């Protein structure tokens, strides 16, 4: 039996050995509450602050600008709702894009129902947003611009630094979701000119349930929870010290491995992309292939005449894990809002697959995919032409 192949690192990543060791060690040695005064608490507090320093140094921030959260979704919600509530006397307008993660989009939608106005700036057919369109949408009452650093479905890298500069000139708070970008691209809050930046542990071989929000000093932020004075009173709740320390360890390692790890992943990705285009007809890449416009590890392809979901099932039955877009609660998929926003015809959006590479993937994995996919695609195209009934429908006329 062939080994299972995991090609869905944009969804989540396996825990790294060193990270697991850190986690295990702290879970068994340090149980104190970081807010306690005694030595048990002090041990935990020390680990917490060391972790904060590590994360801060990884993104060019000051330690007091790092707020630990439960993950990317909470970080996005805290950034968006937190700044919106803190600035509601100043204005009620938020600018974002049509291709954000649902953590951002649905947070914006919720705020719309609470009296805020949101402008959704469209993207081009490579999933890229034009910074001047963001700037053009800024109004006197605009209080926040939020655009992702890299897209989770297509890997498109947004011109965040340019947007940050334009937002900064207008004095508008700027947030970016760097959950997918972290570990694949250098992330520096000064270069990007961001005020808020979301990070997640489990996308970088760290544990699930832990993440961080970078908050530039002086950025207005209202807490989402009521509670104690943890995390600068912005994020109450006893800190998950083992998770946070493991997250910091994971972050430290992925940053150390750059840029070589990115180069390696991009080779795998391009081998798969060019291989698929060569051996299967009707294949197109969704998103840019320029190295500065797409993440090294995410490849999104549409294969004409086949359903992405069917491809996914076929591959899973053979032990190969890919994705058709962002994972959804019930397990059933709708056409991706990201691909539709790139003006991809719905049929091609339904025919898409996302391959996202990680540190365990090898050239042999790509070769196995290239060996299996042509047969699967041929079968699916054959089956879609089969007529099982004389009459296709049943609706009476």
């Amino acid at each position, binding site marked *: *039996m*062939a080994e*299972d192949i995991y090609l869905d690192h944009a969804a989540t990543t396996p825990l790294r050995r060193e990270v697991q060791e850190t986690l295990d060690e702290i879970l068994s040695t340090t149980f104190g509450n970081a807010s306690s005064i005694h030595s048990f608490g002090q041990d935990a507090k020390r680990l917490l602050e060391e972790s904060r320093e590590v994360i801060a140094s990884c993104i060019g921030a000051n330690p007091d600008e790092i707020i630990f959260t439960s993950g990317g979704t909470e970080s996005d919600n805290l950034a968006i709702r937190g700044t919106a509530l803190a600035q509601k006397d100043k204005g009620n307008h938020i600018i974002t894009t049509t291709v954000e993660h649902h953590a951002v989009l649905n947070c914006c939608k919720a705020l719309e129902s609470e009296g805020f106005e949101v402008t959704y700036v469209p993207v081009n057919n490579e999933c890229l947003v034009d910074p001047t369109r963001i700037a053009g949408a800024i109004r006197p009452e605009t209080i926040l611009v939020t655009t992702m650093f890299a897209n989770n479905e297509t890997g498109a890298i947004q011109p965040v630094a340019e947007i940050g500069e334009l937002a900064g000139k207008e004095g508008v708070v700027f947030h970016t979701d760097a959950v997918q970008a972290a570990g694949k691209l250098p992330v520096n809050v000064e270069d990007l000119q961001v005020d808020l930046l979301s990070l997640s542990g489990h996308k970088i071989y760290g544990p699930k349930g832990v993440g961080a929000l970078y908050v530039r000093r002086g950025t207005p932020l209202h807490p989402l929870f009521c509670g104690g004075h943890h995390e600068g009173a912005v994020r109450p709740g006893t800190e998950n010290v083992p998770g946070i320390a493991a997250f910091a360890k994971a972050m430290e390692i992925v940053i150390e491995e750059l840029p070589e790890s990115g180069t390696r992943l991009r080779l795998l990705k391009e081998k798969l992309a060019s291989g698929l285009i060569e051996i299967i007809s009707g294949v197109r890449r969704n998103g840019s292939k320029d190295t500065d416009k797409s993440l090294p590890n995410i490849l999104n392809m549409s294969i004409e005449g086949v*359903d992405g*979901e*069917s491809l996914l*099932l*076929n591959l*899973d*039955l*053979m*032990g190969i894990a890919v994705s058709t877009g962002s994972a959804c*609660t*019930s*397990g*059933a*998929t*709708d056409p991706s809002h990201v691909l539709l926003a790139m003006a991809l015809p719905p049929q091609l959006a339904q025919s898409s697959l996302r391959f996202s590479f990680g540190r365990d993937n090898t050239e042999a994995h790509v070769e196995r995919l290239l060996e*299996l996919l042509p*047969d699967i695609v041929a*079968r*699916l195209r054959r*089956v*879609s032409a*089969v*007529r*099982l*009934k*004389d*009459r*296709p*429908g*049943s*609706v*009476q006329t």
Partner: protein
Amino acid sequence: MRERSEGRNLNNMVAVAMSGGVDSSVSAALLHNQGYRVVGIGLQLVDETEANGSARNCCGIGEMEDARRVAEKLGIPFYVLNFKDVFRKHVIDYFTASYLKGETPNPCVPCNGVVKFDTLLKAAMGFGAGLLATGHYAGVEFDVVNNRYVLKKGADGSKDQSYFLYSLSQEQLARAIFPMSDIQKVETRAIARGLRLKVHDKPESQDICFVGTEGYASYISRHAGVLFEPGPILDDAGVVLGTHQGLYRYTIGQRRGLNLSSPKPVYVIDIDPVHNSVTVAPGDRTRRQQRVLLGRMNYVSISKPREPLEVEAVTRYRKPHVPATLAPVDEDSSFALFHYPQEPTAPGQSVVLYHGDTVLCGGIVRRNNIA
């Protein structure tokens, strides 16, 4: 870790449509025990927000989780497929359009014929499964003499669901497996208990799975975006007896809920969408039907007979067989001539013709069926 295929020798792979109910759960279990390579498929048929919390709702997400747990228990792969579009088009829209025309549709017929045995079967073929199993109490056999697949009733007469499957084609029957064919419902529950499936005591599902507690009328007006239009309720002489609350609240033969103060019980004998009227008559004056004209005929187990054929007709699900003669008119339509006059059939309903425990064919009652 569950069993996985190598991408070869997928011949004995079978997809099982798993609703989370006891019948489809046991079907999956039986096939798994027989050595088939079983893949469980849950069908997402309506939006999560649309699926109301009714426990007897086969499209609900809660049910999907039941199905997933059964699959985990059996150690088989399980996937949820998104069939919302095909379900909306071929089942929900058909259902509402039919009611708005004053008919009484059987949405389960296109759900089986189009959603399950066309769209789902193709998806199954797409991952290499040549067969699709469902938990229906029905059977399929191959008739060597006529070189045809034959649709049979389920052995448990009280549960038989062959009525809802008459629209299948030979190509579809050839790929169908009904593991419940020889099993009594009580046995099914016992098997489920024996396998320690938690679904063993789940209640029976309703026939219209997507209409929850709100009821047909509210569902239809909400879904079709139409408000009910009141109109007259007439007697069979044309005298106005009262006001109805929208045609789609009524069906042929209905007695309850008419809100008429007539001395004798009266029954709906006609629903006229052109004049927006409902006609009623007392039981002794309901026009008994000698014959009914069926459209969209499907000859599932036989080829279309060239001459009239003696059959037994089922004019509504769970009604007894009545003797009739089938007289095809053209490719699409056929008369069923009842040997004894019958209560009026509702336009939109399916009439299914049997020979013993074999489903021969079926069709949908046309509106001007008494012509």
